[in-house]
């Protein structure tokens, strides 16, 4: 399995605040990484840094053998990054269909294949972004990243604040995208169980650096470690 | 290892520096040393007063205004009309000019409390244009487009007659400038001045430490209007003439430029800017009469691209210079 993503000694933040310091991790082609950690430990900052939306102080990011950290934000989609932001940020004054067509890049994933995966979106094709429920906005945000036909999908807390049935539907979709379609992905979540079940590897951040790196299955068998790193514990 | 105690350090910042005394002595000596330049000294003093009035809202409180000439013009017309129809005494005329501008400032301050920089820009611009329209249309009172004729000023304090050489005018304007300068210097160094600077730097935090932001904005805007009215009154009293030009857009733009040349948030910025601007205007318009506007425009563009603070405050050239401008 060839290595897709290689992050080395990355430090980044917003303005002068340094959130990430000395983060290194790697991901092989076709694999899914669960990025865990309590709030404020730098999970979102790491995703945003890969997408080019933060101020990178140091370190390097290699995607498919090419340097990503030197690219401007808008060039990173072409380089293979498919970003699903934490607040979903779908485009309010565009319809569902426009949200997809505005950014679509040629490849396997097309607006129609997104509609096939999320029937609810197909019904709401003509609606404006503002007229969608939280779940529908999340599906649109995932679909919008898919139509970029990226090499690496970045999902920032995709299950956050959604009703259980929507969480189930999204997990099924994510499983299909990563397992069956073989798309590499980094999924950020606060609740470890759901996301570990569909991941190959896992990295836990604490105070801006990597506190623990493991295979997903191994981490699932260490509840006391999980509790120490993620729960309300000293 | 504290070098200065907190109080000593604070007092040291507001203490009058020898350099300031030298400056004011020179300023007051100028009309005598160079009698032929008395008229331009008078103009510089008036423009300097107008500039420091704008600095109170722009430099110290962070309010962008493109219509500050409204108060300048109102003060001017009020003083001129008062002298023509009621009483020629300059000091009383000056007080009337200030009172009129203060009233307008108080009312207009309601318009600058809400909205963004763009809305404030528009509202102040609109106010300036409204007053010019009014002055133009009420021609029975203001003399309309050709201005107010026949404004004769009485002697200052009953003794100093306004003479053609302009020396009395120069001293009159310089003394009024000095009085207001000292007043504004105290205000900007006082706790009240500090709260204005806090509002300029971070309005959210200013509110969160208990500063009643809106009443402070009203206070600053009204104070600035009063001082601008004084400058306008000096203008019409020393020239014996009031015209629509007092409200012109370019006057509000020029005073903005003066402040930027001299540096905002620094009171002496308005004075230094006025000197440089007036001398530059005098020099340039003698070479290219109609087109000095081009050079002012070019100067502005270059000044902003280079970064305002770097150009004027020489110590920033040597300093870290990490952040180009405020």
């Amino acid at each position, binding site marked *: 399995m060839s290595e897709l993503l290689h992050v080395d000694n990355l430090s980044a933040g917003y303005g002068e605040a340094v959130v990430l310091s000395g983060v290194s991790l790697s991901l092989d082609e076709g694999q899914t990484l669960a990025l865990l950690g309590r709030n404020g430990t730098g999970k979102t900052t790491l995703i945003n840094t890969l997408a080019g939306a933060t101020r990178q102080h140091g370190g390097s990011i290699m995607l498919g053998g090419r340097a990503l950290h030197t690219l401007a934000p808008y060039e990173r989609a072409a380089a293979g990054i498919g970003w699903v932001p934490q607040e979903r940020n779908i485009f309010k004054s565009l319809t569902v269909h426009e949200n997809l067509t505005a950014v679509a890049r040629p490849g396997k994933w097309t607006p129609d294949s997104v509609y096939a995966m999320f029937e609810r979106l197909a019904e709401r094709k003509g609606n404006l972004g503002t007229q969608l429920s939280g779940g529908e906005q999340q599906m649109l945000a995932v679909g919008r990243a898919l139509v970029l036909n990226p090499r690496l999908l970045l999902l920032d807390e995709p299950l956050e604040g959604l009703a259980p049935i929507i969480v189930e539907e999204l997990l099924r979709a994510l499983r299909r995208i990563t397992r069956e379609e073989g798309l590499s992905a980094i999924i950020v979540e606060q609740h470890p169980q759901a996301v570990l079940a569909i991941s190959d590897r896992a990295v836990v951040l604490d105070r801006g650096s990597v506190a623990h790196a493991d295979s997903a299955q191994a981490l699932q068998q260490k509840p006391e470690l999980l509790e120490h790193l993620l729960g309300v514990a000293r | 290892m504290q070098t200065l105690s907190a109080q000593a350090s604070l007092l040291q910042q507001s203490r009058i520096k020898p350099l300031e005394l030298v400056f004011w002595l020179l300023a007051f000596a100028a009309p005598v040393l160079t009698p032929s330049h008395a008229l331009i000294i008078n103009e510089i003093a008036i423009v300097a007063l107008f500039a420091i009035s704008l600095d109170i809202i722009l430099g110290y409180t962070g309010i962008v205004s493109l219509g500050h000439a409204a108060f300048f013009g109102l003060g001017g017309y009020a003083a001129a009309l008062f002298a023509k129809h009621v009483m020629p005494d300059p000091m009383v005329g000056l007080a009337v000019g200030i009172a009129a501008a203060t009233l307008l400032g108080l009312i207009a301050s309601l318009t600058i409390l809400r909205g963004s920089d763009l809305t404030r820009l528009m509202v102040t611009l609109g106010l300036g244009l409204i007053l010019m329209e009014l002055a133009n249309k009420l021609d029975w009172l203001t003399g309309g487009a050709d201005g107010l004729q026949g404004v004769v000023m009485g002697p200052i304090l009953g003794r100093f007659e306004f003479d053609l050489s302009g020396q009395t005018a120069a001293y009159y304007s310089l003394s009024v400038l000095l009085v207001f300068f000292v007043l504004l210097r105290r205000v900007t160094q006082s706790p009240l001045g500090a709260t204005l600077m806090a509002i300029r730097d971070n309005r959210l935090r200013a509110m969160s430490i208990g500063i009643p932001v809106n009443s402070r904005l009203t206070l600053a805007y009204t104070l600035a209007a009063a001082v601008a009215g004084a400058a306008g009154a000096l203008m019409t009293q020393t020239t014996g003439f009031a015209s629509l030009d007092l409200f012109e857009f370019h006057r509000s733009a020029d005073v903005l430029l003066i402040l930027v040349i001299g540096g905002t948030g620094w009171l002496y910025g308005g004075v230094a800017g006025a000197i440089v601007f007036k001398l530059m205007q005098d020099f340039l318009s003698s070479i290219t009469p109609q087109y000095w506007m*081009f050079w002012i425009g070019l100067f502005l563009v270059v000044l902003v691209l280079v970064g305002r603070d770097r150009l004027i405050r020489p110590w920033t050239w040597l300093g870290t210079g990490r952040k180009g401008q405020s």
Partner: protein
Amino acid sequence: MLTILFDGVAYGMLLFILAVGLAVTMGLMNFINLAHGAFAMAGGYITVLLMQRMGVPFLVCLPLAFLGAALMGALLERTLYRPMYNKPHLDQVLFSIGLVFMAVASVDYFLGSSQQNIHLPVWLKGRTEIGSDPFMLGMGHYRLFIIAVCAALTVALQYVLTKTRFGSRLRASVDDQRVAAGLGINVNLVFLSTFAVGSGLAGLGGALGAEVLGLDPTFPLKFMVYFLIVVAVGGTSSITGPLLAALLLGIADVAGKYYIPKLGAFIVYSLMIAILIWRPQGLFVRKAGK
């Protein structure tokens, strides 16, 4: 009375074409560009020069005025405007005032300060009147032409914005610049083209408006307030807001000058201040707005 309304609509449409570029660029980059009027003046003078010196017919001049102003806009955006985007609003205001002063003075120097007039082709002159006296609608042919051209441009603009991929990418950038860039939209390029087209439209508006608004070196200063009113009142989150604001302003101005000439412009300015106090983010922007 209908004639007043007709003239007001023509004037409003013209103001819209002149100001729409400013509204979109301000919405996208939150940049206060007071020099927008200079591009309109450029379009006007390009037309005057082409017609007087090279005898180019009026209709051919219009697209050339558009292209000339658009080119100037693109050039200036790339060179002078680009470093200004993250500077404070005061700097942006000073920068654009500086540009306006330079434009006014250089046009005055090269082309003189006299009022320029355009020799309209014959078929554009004249007037037709319909209806009887109280409801007599007098339509100047040229104003009719203006309304037709501006209406066509508005429809085209609306089409580009809502139906084309470029339009959706532009609106996406206005909605959320950070995420739009992260999803592969080159926001700087989008802005460059919008700035250029906006300047081009202003140039076209300047050419069309020379007859109605008059054309002399002080044009950018004289009409700066009107452009800003359209943007401030119309808001920057869509083009329908500025369109309605421009029409409102056009009609108010024409009616004001006709019915109460004494206080004509006074009405427009106080109307503006009242609106801005009441709704600082603009009249036509929904509360959620930007």
